[in-house]
């Protein structure tokens, strides 16, 4: 019997499908089952045999009591899996599959399926603690806030506000992330950042500079429509397991090619139709090698390039150099395989390109991601369903935290730090611009990018003269961040020890509590997890989901927004910070924060997602199509699930969200788009216009004969402003209220008011009414002239094993960036390849995430990965006299070393070693368990891979290099 496929999974035939509609309506299961004996038919017989209908009482909950279902979202990766928590008397007693969620259809990975342990285990930081003479001492919240606050205010006096660093988190909800950035601004610094810096910062910068927005263009679900998947530097089978559900469906149902390029034969590669093993750090050479075949054979999409792409000629010139022989020499991939892959991609339309940290975490990360984009532009695959660049973000809300500008380079919404940006946000915050300015040391520091997270230790350790701010960093706040995810462990230890004040705000003590040998000046504050509060979270595909509170907060933990309120009160700016946000007790109302950012996030369309709309989506998940994500009937009819940004205009405009970016087959009002105009209208006259051909047509950055359905201009056009509306005669479509707001913002020059600062949403509304994308209709660009390498160029890693290639492919010159010196050639100059002959790369395990503190404290997960290890090829192991399971030392060229277990496997090629980066709590052979506060130590400890990793940062974003360094290994 062939059933009609709905989802191709057990869902449609599940015995209990009759239960589903009611299941999330918080119906008491006992009552329900009593009433539904008929509905479940054959099941009644099962019950009769197997005993009474029952629910075991866990965690000592009193017998009886109503069982509520709370819907929340898993906090482990960016897929956004719905978790259905069964709660009885405030206790999380069970977890059921969320079959209605279009993202996960009930599925979880090991981490999601073990989420309940959060409310079950007690290896948490339970109350505020302070290090006194080397001992952890319990203190009260009020004492903690007072002491930390006083110390910070003192540092502010002596060293300036920039000497306090606010490290935020991809674990924050959107509301908390937004509030955190605002909080840092009100403290008066741009020294604020979060995990995106070491995750996808190169993607965000590289991709946004190519075509407008630096996010995943399509969605996990949309991959079900693809004909070929090209994965490079990603292992979603371990990092985003539930996404494989969608990938494998494309493979099975569309017979889609599944090409995995990685130095390591990953668990994802095990399911590939083609595995391409290449040398770590040679992505650009690999992509240019594919384009060489594509251009050579004329397989590129010429019409698409003519209409929608600028600068492909310059790429063509560079690609000419990458003959099959040169590609094989640099990457190690045989010519025949390169040709086969290129042909598969060219003949399978649409094809999608997927990448993760393997592409981004390099000194050339920004150029890697641009090369991937250019490959897709050449094939005409961007802006189509089943195509695009599907960039899998890592954390559950790293997309949201990036969007809300928890970064040293911008305010929320990528507005940057220029005066206009500050003025816009001052209007949204409803505080005078001059008041905000007064919070900073001066206007120069207010508009200067801060120190990136990846470089905080250098901000502490550098001399005062070398740091372009009044003083070095004196206080660090780790607010939801594990330091073992950062490279150069021994340097981090030194920096921890040099600080005046270290504050850790986290559900767990984290490695920050134990790595150093401090005896005082350290505070640990217990933060609530996202299961213990409410708020919205942005999945990788730009969809927002609303979390319900499941339980808690546990012990004395407080939600992040409450902690921000307490600090703001201590610093005396709580009235300004919460001017339009209601505070109940000490806890700001989360929905009010959502409503506030809805008023300001025009650039990327975080304006239509009101709390009410988001909650409606969560309650009606079952009405959304599992492939297109569009609601078919029901209260959300026509909306795309989670209103993926940009969701233009105000919530009242009811924009459905944009499922696939730059898709011209739909009108903008229906979620269509085109490439953004964000780099000027023409190349000529740019700060660096050596790429100009002095031909107005060739130099134009506006789209040609390409536009979304219903666009009344029917061609490329600049971003929309009030002036443009007036010219087109569309200003009369504005309501008097909208016009009043625009006039107030523009003063005597309302025509200068852009679509990004019009707080009425009128300009966007009217533009979309005429089928016009508010951000203009431009071409994607293949040359990013404002980056050091306009066209991506292959450059060898700082620690390369191929020194013979250096004359041709040397790295960048040393420079200064974001207040600090940034080294390239002076590191690469040192020849260590003989002493450290093995390439070392790192990555994830499915059971753990990030610094791993949370999962290593969870017995259900910890049991599955008890030992930190290094994967090495049998040939290397035999040459070094190492057997599987033996303890070995792994040392990097900067002398950081780790004692770990050898795992001898062909998963890594000859001359390559791999270490997972989630372990911590051991340091260079020493067990640090005794340094944890009692009862808060994770079950599993181990050496951090990043004790061994080395210097190296991306030339644009200062992304850390974790994927390519060198090492030597010997038996311990």
């Amino acid at each position: 019997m062939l059933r009609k496929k709905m989802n191709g999974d057990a869902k449609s035939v599940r015995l209990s499908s009759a239960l589903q509609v009611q299941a999330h309506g918080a119906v008491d299961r006992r009552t329900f089952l009593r009433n539904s004996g008929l509905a479940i038919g054959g099941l009644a017989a099962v019950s009769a045999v197997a005993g009474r209908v029952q629910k075991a009482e866990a965690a000592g909950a009193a017998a009886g009591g109503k069982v509520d279902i709370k819907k929340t979202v898993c906090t482990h990766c960016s897929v956004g899996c719905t978790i259905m928590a069964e709660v009885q008397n405030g206790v999380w007693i069970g977890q059921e599959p969320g079959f209605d969620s279009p993202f996960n259809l009930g599925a979880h990975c090991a981490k999601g399926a073990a989420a309940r342990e959060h409310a079950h285990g007690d290896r948490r930081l339970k109350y505020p603690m302070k290090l006194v003479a080397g001992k952890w001492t319990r203190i009260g919240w009020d004492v903690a806030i007072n002491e930390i606050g006083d110390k910070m205010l003192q540092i502010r006096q002596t060293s300036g506000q920039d000497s306090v660093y606010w490290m935020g988190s991809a674990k924050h909800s959107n509301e908390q992330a937004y509030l955190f950035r605002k909080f840092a601004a009100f403290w008066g610094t741009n020294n604020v950042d979060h995990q995106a810096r070491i995750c996808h910062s190169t993607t965000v910068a590289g991709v946004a500079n190519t075509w407008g927005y630096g996010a995943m263009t399509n969605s996990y679900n949309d991959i079900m429509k693809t004909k070929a998947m090209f994965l490079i530097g990603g292992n979603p089978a371990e990092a985003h397991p539930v996404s494989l559900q969608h990938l494998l469906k494309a493979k099975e149902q569309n017979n889609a090619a599944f090409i995995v390029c990685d130095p390591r034969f990953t668990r994802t590669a095990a399911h590939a139709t083609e595995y391409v093993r290449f040398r770590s750090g040679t992505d650009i050479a690999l992509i240019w090698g594919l384009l060489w075949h594509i251009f050579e054979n004329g397989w590129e999409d010429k019409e698409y390039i003519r209409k929608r792409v600028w600068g492909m000629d310059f790429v063509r010139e560079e690609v000419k150099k990458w003959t099959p022989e040169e590609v094989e020499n640099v990457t190690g991939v045989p010519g025949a395989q390169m040709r086969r892959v290129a042909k598969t991609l060219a003949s399978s339309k649409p094809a999608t390109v997927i990448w993760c940290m393997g592409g981004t975490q390099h000194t050339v990360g920004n150029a890697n991601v641009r090369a991937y984009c250019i490959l897709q532009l050449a094939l005409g695959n961007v802006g189509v369903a089943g195509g695009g660049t599907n960039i899998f973000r890592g954390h559950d809300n790293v997309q949201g935290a990036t969007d809300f500008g928890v970064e040293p380079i911008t305010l929320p919404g990528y507005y940057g730090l220029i005066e206009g940006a500050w003025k816009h946000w001052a209007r949204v915050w409803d505080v005078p611009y001059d008041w905000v300015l007064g919070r900073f040391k001066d206007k120069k520091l207010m508009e200067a990018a801060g120190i990136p997270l990846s470089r905080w230790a250098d901000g502490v350790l550098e001399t005062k003269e070398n740091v372009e701010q009044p003083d070095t960093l004196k206080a660090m706040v780790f607010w939801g961040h594990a330091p073992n995810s950062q490279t150069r462990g021994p340097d981090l230890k030194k920096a921890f020890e040099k600080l005046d004040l270290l504050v850790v705000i986290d559900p767990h003590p984290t490695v920050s509590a134990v790595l150093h040998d401090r005896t005082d000046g350290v505070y640990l504050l217990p933060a609530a997890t996202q299961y213990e509060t409410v708020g919205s979270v942005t999945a990788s595909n730009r969809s927002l989901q609303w979390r319900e509170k499941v339980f808690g907060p546990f012990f004395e933990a407080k939600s992040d927004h409450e902690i921000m309120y307490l600090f703001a009160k201590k610093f005396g700016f709580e009235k300004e910070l919460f001017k339009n946000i209601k505070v109940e007790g000490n806890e700001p109302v989360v929905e009010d924060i959502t409503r506030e950012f809805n008023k300001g996030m025009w650039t990327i369309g975080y304006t239509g997602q009101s709390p009410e709309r988001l909650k409606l989506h969560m309650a009606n998940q079952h009405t959304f199509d599992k492939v297109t994500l569009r609601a078919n009937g029901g209260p959300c009819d026509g909306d795309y699930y989670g209103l993926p940004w940009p969701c233009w205009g105000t919530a009242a405009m009811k924009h459905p969200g944009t499922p696939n970016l730059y898709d011209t087959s739909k009108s903008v009002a229906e979620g269509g788009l085109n490439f953004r105009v964000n780099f000027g209208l023409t190349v000529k006259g740019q700060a660096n216009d050596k790429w100009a051909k002095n031909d107005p047509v060739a130099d134009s950055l506006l789209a040609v004969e390409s536009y979304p359905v219903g666009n009344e201009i029917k061609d490329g056009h600049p971003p929309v402003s009030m002036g443009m509306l007036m010219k087109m005669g569309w200003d009369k479509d504005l309501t008097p209220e909208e016009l009043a707001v625009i006039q107030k913002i523009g003063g005597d020059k309302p025509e200068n008011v852009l679509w990004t600062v019009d707080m009425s949403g009128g300009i966007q509304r009217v533009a979309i009414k005429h089928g016009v994308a508010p951000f203009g209709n431009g071409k994607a660009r293949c040359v990013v002239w404002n980056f050091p390498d306009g066209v991506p160029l292959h450059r060898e890693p700082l620690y390369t094993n191929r020194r013979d290639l250096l004359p041709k492919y040397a790295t960048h010159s040393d420079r200064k960036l974001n207040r600090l010196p940034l080294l390239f050639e002076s590191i690469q100059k040192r020849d260590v390849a003989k002493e450290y002959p093995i390439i070392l790369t790192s990555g994830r395990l499915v059971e753990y995430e990030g610094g791993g503190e949370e999962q290593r404290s969870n017995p259900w997960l910890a049991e599955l990965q008890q030992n930190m290890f290094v994967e090495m090829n049998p040939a290397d192991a035999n040459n070094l006299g190492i057997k599987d399971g033996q303890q070995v030392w792994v040392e990097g060229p900067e002398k950081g070393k780790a004692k770990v277990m050898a795992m001898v496997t062909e998963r890594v090629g000859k001359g390559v070693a791999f270490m997972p980066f989630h372990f911590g709590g051991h340091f260079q052979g020493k067990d640090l368990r005794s340094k944890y506060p009692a009862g808060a130590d994770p079950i599993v400890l181990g050496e951090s891979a990043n004790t061994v990793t080395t210097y190296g940062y991306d030339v644009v974003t200062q992304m850390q290099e974790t994927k390519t360094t060198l090492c030597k290994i010997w038996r311990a």
Partner: protein
Amino acid sequence: MARMKFLCDAERCIECNACVTACKNEHEVPWGINRRRVVTINDGKPGERSISVACMHCSDAPCAAVCPVDCFYQTEEGVVLHNKDLCIGCGYCFYACPFGAPQYPQASNFGTRGKMDKCTFCAGGPEKNEEVQFKKYGRNRLAEGKLPLCAEMCSTKALLAGDGDVVSSIYRERVVTRGFGSGAWGWGKAFPGQSG
């Protein structure tokens, strides 16, 4: 009457271990007891495949055939369960089982194995008291109209559980879909010497 069966689709299994932790979450089995585990063959090499294994609830269960105290019984849905009050922890079933399903708690004095523990297909066990049943055998999801949580939460829908007829029809459909193009077996099988 439904005949309950597990099936793990090795083309889909990615060794994410969700089935393992889902089981621990649902039944709160202690550290060291794995009613379900994922086995990988050719680890790290081309041809690597994983499969999730637990008690397969055999129709003619070898464990039941060898048990000296006859503690096994089969429900009407074909779920193989056992009575821990009768079990003497001898380990005969461990020898007999082709899937390594029986688990034993940590060894105590005199090398006794303690009571055997295994997958119950989320069908509980022979115990009237809810709390005692949960502690001894875990939750009884079938009684609640639900299927085993390991399969319900499988990340890629590789692990299927339920009425054997339905499970096999889902799997058959997948096999037919995969037969697209070069066919389920590949041209190489049909025409020796051809690739694919």
